[in-house]
């Protein structure tokens, strides 16, 4: 399928993601932060669609926006936030933290500026076959990355047991 108006959509979704990210880290109310994060995650799913990765976009919407954020909202509702909303929001090392983050950003810019020639102005090397994306991911997931797949399932089992044990009142 031919992509249409790619620059417009890229800048739109990039702006939504960045605004969502800024709202996540600056809102006083954690529920508002969670909502901003949901918006940012959905915008990221759209960018995945632009990058010809529909399966990852679908997984992002189901797992991240529909699963992990529900978990976050549940916990925010269980943990009373009124007291925390009246306290000071930013801790005492915010200056040092921001300077460190800006330095990291400068490092990123330096690396990207130096290596700009690696990414030619033609966006793609090989045009991926969009109709077979899921099948390709499945072949790779159950073929080459089978071991990692099994380990990931074991990790999820451990996480489930750990979360249940941590949240119980009496073990």
């Amino acid at each position, binding site marked *: 399928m031919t992509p249409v108006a790619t620059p417009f959509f890229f800048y739109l979704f990039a702006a939504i993601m960045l605004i969502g990210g800024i709202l996540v880290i600056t809102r006083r109310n954690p529920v508002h932060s969670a909502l901003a994060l949901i918006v940012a995650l959905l915008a990221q799913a759209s960018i995945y669609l632009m990058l010809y990765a529909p399966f990852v976009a679908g997984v992002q919407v189901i797992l991240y926006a529909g699963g992990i954020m529900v978990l976050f909202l549940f*916990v925010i509702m269980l943990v009373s936030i009124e007291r925390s909303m009246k306290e000071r929001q930013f801790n005492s090392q915010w200056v040092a*933290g921001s300077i460190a983050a800006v330095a990291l950003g400068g490092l990123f810019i330096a690396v990207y500026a130096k290596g700009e020639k690696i990414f030619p102005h033609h966006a793609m090397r090989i045009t991926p076959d969009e109709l077979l994306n899921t099948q390709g991911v499945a072949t*790779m997931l159950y073929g080459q990355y089978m071991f990692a797949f099994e380990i990931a399932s074991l990790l999820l089992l451990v996480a489930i047991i750990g979360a249940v044990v941590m949240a119980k009142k009496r073990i």
Partner: protein
Amino acid sequence: MESMLHITTLHYLVLGAALFILGVVGVLTRRNVVIVLMSIELILNAVNLNLVAFSHFWGGLHGQVFAIFIITDAAAEAAVGLGILIAFFRNKETVNIDEVNLMKW
């Protein structure tokens, strides 16, 4: 302006880097544990964006498969992190991360 209109892989990488910086700022400066955990999710998403952009650049699907694993990992980590948060809240009745100082001398 010309180069800004044609979207190359570098655009996606810069976007990923910006999200990463936002997440790092959130982790380092906020006092509410839930928001720190959400900033960690931002960082993981930035890494995912990087991976998928490179997968698009090279044409193979390895980046997308790794991104799926990272999403799975983030789910597990969010679950355990929030479980720890609930246990902590039950003890101390606060979600301020500066109050996690029982092992300080």
